[in-house]
């Protein structure tokens, strides 16, 4: 019975296949980094910056493809430069930040269109487009694991280095500035960590979907955790879970669908989406119990009485 359900869960060759092993390892590294960085992206309200970076990365990835390099280097180069430009143009006012991001984003998407066109012409297939936009987790180049581990470690180390001032400036920019936190240095370090996380995610699940791995698990974690450290741990765990389950579903679907399975990115994002709804149900259930005792409501009740 157990053997039956076990074998129907994992189609033959899942664990022995080398591409699958690489996919699971690289997926996990990417997921952990995305989960950690994503929590700060959400609490700083910079989802749009994350999304912009992933779109900008599209230009980088397609450019790398054009010159025959591994897409990861294109993603990293373009994202790091874009993060630097975004930081330089404007950070204080949310509106200025939005505008700066939007302008850099528009220009990059134009470049991406050009590069993807050239890629398609030169290789006479749509392989480049699919690879850049939707990821290449099952066809990763050899040696990618080391590159990803180094990038991931750098990103996480940056976050760890600025952890407290980053949190303080996320609570209040004014307060952090008054405490003499080098707010731009801290914000810049965070953006660099974000650029690396988005690049890794772009390789794994594709440039246009990488935000899902960044924002989704973090949003789920913020619904469940009360502490920053716990939120980060939950986000990383959720991201790894989604990556692995998504990879498994994608692998199994090749058997179910007879040859052409579903894209891995679709499966991973689908898992995140389902978990997001589930976390909403959990949070609402817990929230209902908590709400009854919040002081706001007690005060409101008292005011009604007075009136």
């Amino acid at each position, binding site marked *: 019975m157990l053997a039956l359900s076990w074998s129907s869960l994992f189609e033959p060759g899942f664990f022995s296949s080398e591409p699958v092993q690489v996919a699971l390892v690289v997926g996990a590294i990417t997921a952990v980094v995305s989960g950690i960085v994503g929590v700060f992206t959400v609490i700083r309200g910079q989802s749009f910056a994350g999304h912009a970076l992933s779109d900008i990365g599209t230009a980088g990835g397609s450019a790398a493809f054009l010159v025959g390099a591994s897409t990861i280097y294109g993603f990293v180069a373009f994202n790091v430069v874009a993060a630097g430009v975004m930081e330089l143009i404007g950070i204080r006012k949310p509106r200025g930040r939005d505008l700066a991001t939007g302008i850099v984003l528009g220009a990059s998407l134009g470049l991406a269109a050009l590069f993807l066109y050239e890629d398609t012409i030169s290789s006479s297939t749509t392989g480049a487009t699919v690879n850049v936009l939707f990821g290449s987790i099952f066809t990763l180049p050899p040696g990618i694991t080391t590159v990803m581990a180094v990038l991931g470690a750098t990103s996480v180390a940056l976050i760890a280095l600025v*952890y407290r*001032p980053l*949190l303080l400036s996320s*609570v209040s920019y004014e307060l952090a500035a008054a405490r003499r936190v080098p707010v731009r240095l801290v914000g810049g370090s965070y953006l660099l960590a974000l650029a690396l996380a988005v690049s890794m995610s772009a390789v794994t699940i594709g440039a246009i979907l990488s935000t899902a791995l960044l924002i989704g698990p973090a949003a789920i974690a913020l619904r469940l955790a009360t502490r920053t450290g716990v939120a980060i741990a939950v986000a990383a765990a959720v991201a790894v879970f989604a990556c692995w389950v998504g990879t498994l579903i994608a692998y199994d679907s090749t058997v179910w669908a007879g040859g052409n399975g579903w894209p891995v990115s679709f499966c991973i994002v689908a898992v995140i989406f389902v978990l997001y709804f589930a976390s909403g149900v959990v949070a609402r259930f817990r929230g209902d119990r908590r709400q009854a005792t919040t*002081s*706001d409501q007690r005060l409101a009740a008292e005011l009604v009485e007075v009136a």
Partner: protein
Amino acid sequence: MSVTTDPVPAVGESPLGIGTGMSAPDTVLQVEDVSVSLAGRRVLDRVSFSIEGGEFCGLIGSNGAGKTTLLRAILGLIHPSSGRIVVSGGTRTRRNPQIGYVPQKITLETDMPLRARDLVGLGLDGHRFGISRPGAKRRTAVDEMLEAVGATRFADARIGNLSGGEQQRVMIAQALICRPKLLLLDEPLANLDIRSAAEVVDLLAQIAGEQRIAILLSAHDMNPLLPVMDRVVYLADGRAAAGTTDEVVRTDTLSALYGHHVEVIHVAGRVLVVSGAEHQAHHPGDADPSVREA
């Protein structure tokens, strides 16, 4: 300790240099003839006053009067074009743990994964790089501070889920945990209901008295502060009148400050500042926002 011996007039040549006089040995904040220009506009015009340890000082003025600019100058975030600011004997140049700060209108989203006690902890070491290592000493310091501001009950709740008054208590604890000599609060009573505002004011008065901390609190309405205010700095158009409430909140003093006739009226224990002719109801445009129906 920097001591000025000359009485510093609060507003140019007008007879408002009240209360500053000699710098007492316990002077925590001394603002001397400070002017600030931002983008070519003179936001503060020769502002002078001082506060001693344990004193509760209200910084009163309408929006745009220069309250936030003055607080930012004291924090060292803005450099005055002339004049001098002395905090607890030393000029402000670098990070000064002598000053605790509660900024204006912080919006804490409900999904912010931070408990009240975590925010207070950030007050202790939030400016340091790296990740804080939890320890018994740190925890005790945070617990004591939460207790001191009456926030123990909701210490483990998410800050985003707390009421406005509760959030202000946590922000005050965050500002006080480094044991500053001066506490600056920028409009902490805005958006609080009357009862929460009164509770926050009482708490601050108690802290000022017990810990000998000088408090400078900005507000557009002075009424909630009247019971506890030792001193008032009244700002209008970047100019200031400073002294005790009785000295400053008077028809002649405020008329001189505004440069036109304003009437100070006491109604049912509240103070109203009404501009224009004595019998004329105030116009929304030229009246001070602290003017409200009692």
